[in-house]
């Protein structure tokens, strides 16, 4: 005979999970459906693909420095620009962050903890304000140019360039790159490195043939954690880019402010689909080619 059994069956545990399950469906999954729903409807909620086509076809003229005008696809350009800046920022984070993570992982245990705290502290300064602080440091009348002026140099025009936007992104998301790489490197068995040396590897060769491949999962999660927020950020480019480099996040915000909710949803939807596809691809590649990457 079948028996429903004693209380240890997961009934109680399912009950504990039920509120969160319901919450997740209502406030995580359903809202995502709403993004798609708004993206594919017009103001009267009739089906339309116009919002999506608008993203790919809307055109505008930009005036070059020499006064000539070129016609471009507005949102495609904005997206490509976001992608470019995000990729550059991610790479900068990676090349700055990997050595940092490595240094941390090889430090004494106490130093490791201190360094980790130090890396994380800036994240707890309000995002808007620290970005604004960079603006005051870098602007033409700012601190750096003030110092440069005293020794008769400059001024350096940084604000309003792509470099400033990249700097802002790198600054904001740097910890997200360091921490996952660090946690992998810190866990790595030092005997492996000794074994590699024992087998005749030099320092560089140990790095290339043992440390780098083993830390790939950390690198990949670092890259994802930097790429995603930097591609979708708004505000950084408004302040540090002086509003000259409209990014995809700014586009969404702009449409939201203008109350074009359906088009805002369409941009968000396209961004989401592209990110999802990129993540799936990354996951596939990782699982396939990276040890420990599943």
């Amino acid at each position, binding site marked *: 005979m079948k028996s429903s059994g004693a209380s240890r069956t997961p009934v109680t545990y399912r009950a504990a999970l039920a509120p969160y399950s319901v919450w997740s469906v209502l406030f995580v999954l359903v809202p995502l459906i709403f993004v798609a729903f708004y993206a594919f409807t017009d103001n009267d909620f009739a089906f339309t693909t116009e919002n999506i086509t608008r993203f790919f076809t809307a055109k505008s003229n930009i005036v070059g420095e020499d006064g000539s005008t070129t016609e471009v696809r507005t949102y495609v350009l904005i997206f490509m620009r976001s992608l470019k800046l995000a990729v550059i920022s991610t790479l900068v984070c990676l090349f700055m962050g990997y050595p940092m993570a490595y240094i941390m992982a090889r430090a004494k245990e106490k130093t490791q903890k201190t360094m980790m705290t130090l890396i994380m502290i800036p994240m*707890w*300064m309000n995002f808007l304000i620290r970005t604004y602080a960079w603006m005051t440091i870098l602007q033409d009348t700012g601190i750096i140019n003030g110092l440069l002026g005293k020794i008769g140099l400059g001024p350096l025009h940084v604000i309003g360039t792509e470099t400033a936007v990249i700097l802002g992104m790198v600054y904001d998301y740097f910890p997200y790159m360091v921490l996952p790489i660090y946690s992998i490197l810190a866990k790595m068995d030092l005997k492996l490195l000794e074994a590699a040396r024992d087998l005749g590897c030099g320092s560089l060769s140990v790095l290339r043939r043992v440390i780098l491949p083993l830390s790939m999962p950390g690198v990949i999660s670092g890259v994802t954690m930097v790429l995603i927020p930097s591609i979708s950020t708004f505000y950084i480019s408004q302040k540090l880019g002086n509003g000259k480099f409209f990014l995809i996040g700014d586009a969404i915000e702009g449409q939201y402010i203008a109350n074009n909710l359906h088009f805002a949803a369409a941009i968000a939807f396209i961004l989401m689909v592209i990110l999802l596809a990129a993540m799936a691809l990354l996951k596939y590649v990782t699982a396939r080619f990276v040890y420990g990457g599943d």
Partner: protein
Amino acid sequence: MKLSAKIYSAIIFCFLFAPIAVLLVFSFNEAKSLSVFSDFSVKWYVELFRDRNTLAALKNTLVLAASATAISTLLGTFAAVGINRLRSRWYRAAMNTVTDIPMVNPDIITGISLMLMFVFIGRLFGASTSLNFGTMLIAHVTFCTPYVILQVLPKLQQMDNALPEAAMDLGCTPLGAFFKVELPEILPGIITGAIMAFTLSLDDFVISYFTAGTGFETLPIRIYAMTKKTVTPKMYALATIIFFVTLTLLLISNVVDNEDSRKLKERKKKK
């Protein structure tokens, strides 16, 4: 540490702390300038505490953060307990994915998606404005809860599953076993999770920005509005205060966590 490593770390930390140092220093500037320091003064702090709107926003932020923390801690702790015991692989994978979404999804999409739903439902009921404290609270609970789960779940996994069974074996009801045995074991995770939820909620701008009602302004939203105009050192004073409050909370959370892992190590050594 090698010299080169020391120099490299020093450069990185200079980069990381430069804006924070600027903030700190200029919050004590006598003049209004954010780039030329004239004289030490606490006048911006004084002015900050005279600014009704900012104080109101501060109160709003704290109320919101406290409510969101309470709800998400409760929701997340029970969820973690449930997830930990899920036998169905399918259900477990689904829960993990759903928990990942708010953490991985760009904030702007989380914000937009919730906003769209609230606005739509508001329209259904014919409300003129559908965004208010409630919608913000829902949004904050939604993005805080995964972090609570992330803190509590490892504590549950470290715990010997036989512990609650032992309690039941000795006469506890399942609920009694949870409160008498499981809860004390996972408490450090719950505390760090709650602190994390609180600081995240305190600091959030993007999601709040999209789900905020017109009548409910939190500090980050106020700061955003202020940075659209010219900023005075008053805001730096505000940022400095928030920064130190958050920092204190995180240090507490670190102490709790360290104490817990020290105990765990001690326990492992004995085995």
